[in-house]
């Protein structure tokens, strides 16, 4: 930022890169045409963005802290979705019940089961798969790809190749109608769940001693080790939380889609990668920003030019890489 030009000045005053999702919403309004459609699309985009954020934040932190790019991340997403679906199917009586408490109990049981699985599987994954190859990118990529193949096949072996229907709790089914605007309740729930996770992560990272250690580890791992902290234990914890968030995001995504197949993890993973690249590695703010941009753009473009929805995210990524090669809000430029 040697010579701030006029447009850059103006851009920084409205909030810099943080304002991008809002700018995108404003630009989309005249293109979409009708306000009610725009509101529906925006809510859908925000909800989708929040769910992608859940999955992307873990990946981004794991990369920032440990310099590990985990291609096996999508396995946690798949497992999360399928475990969530199985729990909901097993609790069908609660899911369909007329009482809000039972509905939420079933939902939280599903999300909880997926998240717990993510924690345990994350521990296993870190110890067995990733630990032997720390510091070697090539072998990390290869090993995690191998783990991805194996876990995708296990999903196929357990749940079969046919699509599995995900029951949705009665209270979250249907939409609120305000005037001529229809908003699906599930999307609101997804949005607030994502927001809660974001706030919780932010508080832990900024207000606790553990968070301080994590941030210091992202910045300069060797220095933290030299000060006598066992950074490896923090790594394991971050990896477990990252995997749990991926599984949680997967469970939410499964409910959002309604019908899931074994390919789910791989499909979402592309979006997650794009988000992590756009946002910048290692920062949860970046992941949130990237996820919202991808979610919103995906929904708007799917409405305006249906054929280009995935390609649009790709183009967004290309444009942002040209503008800021390290992403929008990277924790570090390494």
């Amino acid at each position, binding site marked *: 930022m040697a010579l701030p030009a006029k447009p850059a000045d103006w851009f920084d005053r409205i909030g810099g890169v943080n304002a991008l999702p809002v700018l995108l919403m404003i630009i989309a309004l005249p293109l979409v045409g009708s306000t009610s459609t725009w509101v529906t699309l925006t809510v859908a985009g925000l909800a989708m963005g929040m769910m992608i954020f859940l999955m992307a934040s873990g990946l981004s932190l794991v990369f920032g802290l440990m310099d590990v790019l985990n291609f096996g991340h999508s396995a946690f997403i798949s497992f999360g979705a399928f475990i969530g679906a199985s729990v909901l199917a097993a609790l069908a009586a609660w899911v369909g019940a007329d009482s809000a408490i039972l509905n939420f109990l079933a939902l939280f049981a599903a999300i909880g089961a997926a998240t717990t699985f993510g924690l345990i599987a994350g521990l296993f994954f870190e110890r067995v*798969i990733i630990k032997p190859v720390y510091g070697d990118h*090539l072998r990390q*990529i*290869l090993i995690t790809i191998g783990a991805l193949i194996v876990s995708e096949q296990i999903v*196929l072996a357990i749940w079969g190749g046919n699509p599995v229907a995900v029951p949705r709790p009665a209270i979250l089914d249907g939409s609120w109608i305000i005037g001529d605007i229809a908003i699906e309740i599930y999307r609101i729930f997804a949005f607030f769940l994502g927001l809660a996770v974001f706030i919780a992560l932010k508080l832990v990272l900024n207000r606790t001693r553990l968070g301080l250690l994590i941030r210091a580890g992202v910045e300069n791992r060797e220095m933290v080790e030299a000060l006598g902290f066992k950074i490896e234990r923090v790594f394991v914890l971050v990896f477990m939380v990252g995997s749990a968030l991926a599984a949680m995001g997967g469970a939410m995504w499964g409910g959002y889609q309604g019908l899931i197949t074994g390919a789910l993890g791989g499909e979402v993973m592309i979006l997650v990668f794009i988000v992590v690249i756009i946002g910048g590695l290692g920062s949860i703010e970046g992941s949130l920003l990237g996820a919202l941009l991808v979610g919103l753009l995906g929904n708007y473009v799917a409405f305006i030019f249906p054929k280009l929805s995935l390609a649009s995210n*790709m183009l967004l*990524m290309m444009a942002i*890489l040209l503008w800021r*090669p390290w992403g929008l809000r990277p924790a570090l430029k390494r």
Partner: protein
Amino acid sequence: MTDSELISAPASDPVRKGRMVVYAIALVIALALAFAPFLFQDVRSGQVAARICIFIVLAASYDLLIGYTGIVSFAHTMFFGMGAYGAAIALKNSGAHWSSVIAGGGLGVLCAAVLAVLIGILSLRVKAIFFAMVTLAAASVMLVLVSQFSDFTGGEDGIVYSSPNLFKPATKLLLGDDGKVLKIMGVSMDGKIAAYYFVFLSCLVLYWFLARIVRSPLGTVLEAIRENEMRAEAIGYRVVAYRTAVFMIAAIVAALAGVVWAVWLKYTGPESTLSFAIMIDILLMVVIGGMGTMVGAVIGATLMSIAQFFLKDLMEAAAGATSFLPLVPNLLNPDRWLLWLGILFILLVYFFPAGIAGTLMKKGAHK
């Protein structure tokens, strides 16, 4: 590998022996492929032989990236597919002539080269690990585009077309004394054999080209970049330019292999060219064969292609034998063969990161 080992390596006996074994295996494979139509006369074996030829080239060009330069790309099938679709669309729309193969295939190869350069300058300068993600995203977008623009690409079903006249089974290549198709060792000299040798010779040329590159000064620079990027840059090599160039070369070779594949198969679809499964296949071939050794590609591709056929039969039998147990038959189902290959792959990366050829030749090991 320490310096003293490096110095003593060429002289020590086990290494020389290992090297001999590897080259002997490669030679046997090459000879088997050269005389495949005479040695294996059923249709399925012919298919396998042609597939092995193509995949040797694909794996070798991928090895140029991952083994020699240390670039991990997931867009290799994308370039392969671009060549194949270029030739396929031209053959379908402007008739089965050589001119359409050259024009369409050429256009596909050109597109692949341009796209490779674009991706290269855009993302190779940032961070090597970004590159893996960017190429993965690019490849999946290409897959979606192909299935959506189905008027042009045939969508999920792909395109069926005929190959140039020379390769039609009715073509008489050599005539015997009686005016019929000449038979040599029971094999008729018709269009089918011409098609096989077209595949074999094109792949031989492409493979030779790749082997020349890694032996050339360029190959040495690439290995220098792989070993120590900063040092290569400090010596004065423009790392980004070299990386982009090698990415483009690999893309062009993959696209050319795609053109040959399209002409041979007379069908081009996402499953046969673009799918992620093929990308995994190539990756497995290179790692199993040995990264950073061109011969490794030959061994890996042959082994994988043969294993794909026989492992499935074996698993079929195993699943039948264990059908009384819960879940086990599910895991042994022939469709799950990738599961076992994946486990094998992980173990291989742990214990033999140099692959078959690399371990035997005691070189090319990445720590």
